[in-house]
């Protein structure tokens, strides 16, 4: 078989937007393999969500539904069981999806059970089982070929356009799925409350670093963020210090973003940070020290303290937007 199965995530009964780039990557891979695109929806009772997804199609032939009480809330243990079962019963050539914390957790586990290789965080589909991906904090681009009857991949959201609705897909139930949490329990999920777009989906990202000194000072960055309809980001130094929640971290070990416009305010530009934002279209750096590496990749640099410049920047942007 040469079909590709993309595992998608649902929330509030709908497809989560961050799954869309993974569908695009899956469609590209299906085209390279000469097979069909199939989607997999997992949950306790995901039938209605699957029907909604099938109505939009997204280029898929069929939306497969894996229903089992143990699949909610998400655990890697139960999801890997379901992914393995789906891969075996559908006989697909490839399984993947967007590189979110969900698939990063569950897919390698499933791949191990399937004895399948995995191409993680791919940035390009280069051929039937050939992928491009960044390594060494974005300082090298590797091309890897995977061997075997079934291969796995996760796709970096910033590098694939969101899949667009298309012709409706069919819906099929996956029979006889077993799934178990192996004794694990999810006690709570504390979501970072925000009315802003998700970091990886935003057109504008405004990030602050250690030089912001404390969380309260992020207020001026938030004002700029909201004027531009963007998302707030941060360096590791700022998240480690608790100035902002950890899920706002941009970088090698945080979110990888590529917005139209990225502001790095009081961020030095360590390679691990650059790995998460260097593919942004336009980069603005505001830093009091003109020698910092961030200026080597910034399109526009302003050597100044944020205290002296950010309030004025907010004012000017507001005037322009107003």
């Amino acid at each position, binding site marked *: 078989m040469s079909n590709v199965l993309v595992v998608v995530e649902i929330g509030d009964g709908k497809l989560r937007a961050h799954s869309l780039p993974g569908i695009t990557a899956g469609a590209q891979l299906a085209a390279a393999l000469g097979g069909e695109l199939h989607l997999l929806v997992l949950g306790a009772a995901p039938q209605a969500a699957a029907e909604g997804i099938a109505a939009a199609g997204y280029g898929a032939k069929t939306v497969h539904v894996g229903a089992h009480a143990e699949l909610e809330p998400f655990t890697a243990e139960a999801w890997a069981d379901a992914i393995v079962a789906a891969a075996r019963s559908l006989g697909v050539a490839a399984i993947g999806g967007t590189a979110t914390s969900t698939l990063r957790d569950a897919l390698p586990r499933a791949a191990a059970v399937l*004895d399948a290789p995995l191409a993680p965080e791919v940035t390009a589909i280069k051929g039937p089982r050939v992928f491009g991906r960044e*390594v060494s904090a974005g*300082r*090298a*681009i590797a091309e890897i070929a995977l061997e075997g009857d079934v291969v796995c991949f996760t796709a970096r959201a910033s590098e694939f356009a969101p899949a667009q609705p298309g012709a409706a897909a069919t819906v099929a139930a996956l029979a006889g799925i077993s799934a178990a949490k192996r004794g694990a329990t999810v006690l709570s999920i504390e979501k970072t409350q925000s009315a802003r777009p998700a970091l990886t989906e935003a057109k*504008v990202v405004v990030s602050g670093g250690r030089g912001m000194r404390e969380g309260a000072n992020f207020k001026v960055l938030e004002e700029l963020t909201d004027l531009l309809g963007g998302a707030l980001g941060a360096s590791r130094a700022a998240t480690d210090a608790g100035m902002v929640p950890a899920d706002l971290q941009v970088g090698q*070990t945080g979110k990888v973003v590529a917005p139209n416009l990225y502001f790095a305010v009081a961020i030095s530009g360590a390679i691990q940070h650059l790995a998460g934002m260097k593919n942004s279209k336009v980069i603005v750096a505001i830093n009091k020290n003109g020698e910092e590496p961030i200026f080597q990749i910034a399109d526009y640099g302003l050597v100044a303290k944020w205290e002296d*410049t950010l309030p004025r920047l907010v004012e000017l942007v507001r005037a*322009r937007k107003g």
Partner: protein
Amino acid sequence: MKILVTVKRIPDPVEPPKFAGGQIDTSSAKWVQNEFDEYAIETALRLAEVGGGTERLAEVVVVSVCPATKREHVTNFLAMGANRAIVVDADDTQLDAQSVAQLIAAVFRKEGADLLVSGKLSQDNESNEVSQRVAGLLDLPQATFAASVVWDRSANALQVAREVEDGVETKRVPLPAVLSVDLRIVLPTSVKNGATPEGHPYPDKPRLASLRGITMAKTKKVDVLKPADLGVSVGAKVVSRGVVAPPKRQAGKIVASVEELVEKLATEAKVL
């Protein structure tokens, strides 16, 4: 309680990669331990020790898949405080994640370990898959990307805060289990074992080996095993087709004022 900690040797990530013959050239590289694995050993030691003292609640065993002659990184972890080590003698640069996971899973079984602690990814190839694979192969529960961990000794379970897409998930896993650690696991209060007093002054990074630790490391036991000793036949289904440097981004211009910045963003870059 026996904790197994993985460590990988990688080319020093501070040095920009060199390229030759369409691959990364590591011939002149300085090899160091993966920083995330330093976080893993720090986590294991904080779980095992009582407030930095000598009493131990668990044995900490380091495992590395590497050429037996190139194990300085293992010695470093022994110097930090691990009890002993196991080296699986193989050229890890020729193995894929599944092979490495099979070897580590075999060591885990052989040792009858209760917990595997690994860094969430290696800084060189950034795969982020070995610990999840080990958990799958051993059919054990897993808690990945841990930002904090509490060892509930009476229930023989871990309570782990995991950094997920849009927040923090708290997951409880019974032992035996697999744990992969993220950056914030090394903050001063991230690891609790119920024995170290609250407020014990841990630093916000992995410990440095003491002089005594460095001396002691030389006397600690290191078992060297071959993959065949573990009944694992290794290989790679992931084949490199070449590695290149990314296109270089041109440095832009320095603007003199906020006014000029806004003007340029609006009229030149057209992003406002």
